[in-house]
């Protein structure tokens, strides 16, 4: 007999998580219900009010792990880049209940929000009865559906540093515009000051076991004049670094080609200092 737990607070949820470490977490249910495991106990966190909060500190925006995409879209604290990317995810009905925390904890290589969260350098607040720890998203996702979440832990919040960029870029490529699992997704951000590239970050989704972000390639662009940006060298490096596979959604060759086109499009638009989404 499957047991269901309905904690009202995070504190209560953590008690149950410690007592029943094998219980599956139900946040939005949009992935869970496609193939529900009828054998495992379930911890429903979707009705915990604390986990739906969105708050800001001086330096960060803190998003409760059970916030739905719709809640993100409706909240003035959420950066517009994230809101625009959310519009590309699934469909309105899925955005009503699907959660950012779920996208992270499912750790699918095709998670739509992940490339963006990698370039925004999101941190995660992981809590257990013993206390909380912070981990970067990069250190949290270990592989296909593998994360660093301990059995007694719960993802409590996603923490976004407050930053401003001169260029933001997000593009998802799927078989159709709506309700598609991506073949390739890409996100890039850049900071330019007085024609000098201060910071470039680029992340590729659906082309490896985890999101691909290579800070050593990004570093090739730092402190360069816009006119001297080593675009072809960077593209060559990404060509070596990105090794996608063939699967039912796309082919390795198409994915590789699209990644390099997107990277090039992003890098050649850095000087334009405009946001580009889609």
């Amino acid at each position: 007999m499957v047991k269901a737990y309905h904690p009202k607070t995070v504190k209560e949820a953590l008690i149950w998580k410690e007592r029943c470490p094998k219980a599956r977490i139900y946040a939005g249910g949009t992935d869970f219900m496609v193939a529900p495991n009828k054998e495992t106990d379930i911890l429903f966190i979707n009705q915990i009010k604390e986990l739906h909060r969105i708050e800001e500190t001086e330096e960060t925006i803190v998003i409760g792990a059970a916030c739905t995409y719709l809640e993100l879209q409706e909240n003035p604290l959420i950066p517009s880049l994230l809101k625009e990317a959310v519009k590309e995810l699934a469909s309105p009905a899925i955005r009503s209940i699907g959660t950012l925390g779920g996208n992270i904890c499912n750790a699918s290589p095709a998670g739509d929000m992940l490339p963006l969260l990698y370039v925004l350098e999101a941190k995660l607040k992981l809590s257990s009865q013993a206390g909380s720890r912070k981990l970067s998203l990069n250190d949290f996702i270990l592989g296909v559906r593998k994360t660093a979440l301990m059995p007694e832990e719960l993802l409590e919040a996603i923490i976004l540093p407050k930053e401003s960029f001169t260029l933001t870029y997000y593009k998802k490529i799927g078989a159709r515009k709506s309700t598609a699992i991506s073949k390739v997704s890409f996100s890039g951000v850049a900071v330019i000051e007085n024609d000098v590239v201060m910071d470039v970050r680029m992340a590729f989704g659906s082309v490896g076991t985890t999101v691909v972000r290579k800070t050593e390639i990004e570093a090739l662009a730092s402190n360069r004049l816009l006119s001297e940006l080593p675009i072809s060298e960077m593209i060559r490096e990404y060509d070596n670094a990105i090794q996608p596979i063939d699967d039912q959604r796309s082919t390795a060759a198409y994915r590789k080609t699209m990644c390099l086109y997107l990277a090039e499009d992003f890098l050649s638009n850095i000087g334009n200092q405009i946001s580009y989404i889609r």
Partner: protein
Amino acid sequence: MRVEFILNGESVCVEAEPTDRLLDILRGQFSLGGVKEGCGEGECGACSILLNNRLVNSCLVAMGSIVGAAVVTIEGYRTTKRYEVLERTFAKAGAVQCGFCTPGMIMAAEALLSKNPTPTTDEIRAAISGNLCRCTGYNMIIQAIEMAAKEGVGLW
């Protein structure tokens, strides 16, 4: 588990497994056959309902997740003035052929118009982007929703 929730405005209580799909309970226990099952994995929108006034696919909702929540299906919605307008404009525009997607389309139209009573064509397209129709080619459905926004001024 016993799940109490509000269904089409009335308090109800049902015995269900926590992972039972709301879709199956609505159709099986409450005989609400206007909620259709198309794909069963959130891709087609035929099972669309309103959960706490938000559009959701009832195939992706576990009974254990809706304790105390408010559910509205096409059967509840059809008693409203807003529905009357949508029914009329869907008929006028020829937006219904086989009809399988229609309850979901109507719920998606309501979810849109209740937030945005004067949507653009693009906003309508986005609002029904999770609802598949294999008959109409969508244009008549979009026209029907545009007409409803005009004819139903003040209702939304």
